[in-house]
């Protein structure tokens, strides 16, 4: 492997940071879910890079579990968004304060 492991870690860090910034700064709840996908993909790149580095295929297996969780998260998250949109007619998270006290 001519590309050092640290390059992959830096790329993954940049992606994860972008996702965190998206979650914190955006008001559109769909973009927030997209940012979560970004973070999950950053961890997946880490998993695969380490799997290649250690010559251990277990890292790639764990990417499958991440994929499963991502699919479940998307299904439930989008269902919640649709339910919220029915109730409030908006997807701006500033409007969703039912659970605040």
């Amino acid at each position, binding site marked *: 492997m001519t590309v050092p492991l640290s390059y992959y870690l830096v790329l993954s860090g940049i992606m994860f940071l972008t996702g965190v910034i998206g979650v914190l700064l955006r008001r559109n709840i769909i973009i927030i879910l997209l940012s979560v996908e970004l973070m999950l993909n950053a961890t997946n790149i880490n998993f*695969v890079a380490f799997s290649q580095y250690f010559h251990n295929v277990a890292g790639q297996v764990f990417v499958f579990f991440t994929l499963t969780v991502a699919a479940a998260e998307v299904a439930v998250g989008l*269902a919640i*968004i649709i339910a919220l949109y029915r109730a409030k007619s908006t997807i701006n998270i500033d409007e969703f304060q039912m659970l605040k006290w």
Partner: protein
Amino acid sequence: MEQAFFFYFAFVIAATSVLVVALRNPIYSTLALLVMFFHVAGLYVTLHAEFLAAVQIIVYAGAILVLYLFVVMLLNLKQDVRYHRQWPMAAAVGATLVIEAIILTAMKGSTTPAAATDTETAIGGAGNTEAIGDVLYTTYLFPFEVASLILLVAMIGAIVLAKKDIGEREA
């Protein structure tokens, strides 16, 4: 050569992930994410994870992203959403991460992990797909079953959440 591929994929992934967060229109954000998924799949190919690259395209680009696009177009929102006012929080988290990155870069080399113990199944020795299947259905069989349970629960949950007035009919 390998480095050139890596830098191409890395640049496109970084640029499109910034676009996902920065673009105003959710549809454009989703399409930027699509480009990112394809390039992540390309990165997997350079890492000799060919099966994972195929799965990445099929599941992420094929299923998850279509679901996002479906919901974005179903809700059909054209309003201009501005950025959230959480600058103190964002500054705190960002500063923490930057400090952590600096510390990790400063102590680079002192914590290099021991590489390449060839005790486990070698990647690409007997084909990437075969190696993954071998480990997935022997060592990680129980997590695999639990993952299927997660998918079942998510499916039922999505139906219950998105279905209109399911409680009234039952009550």
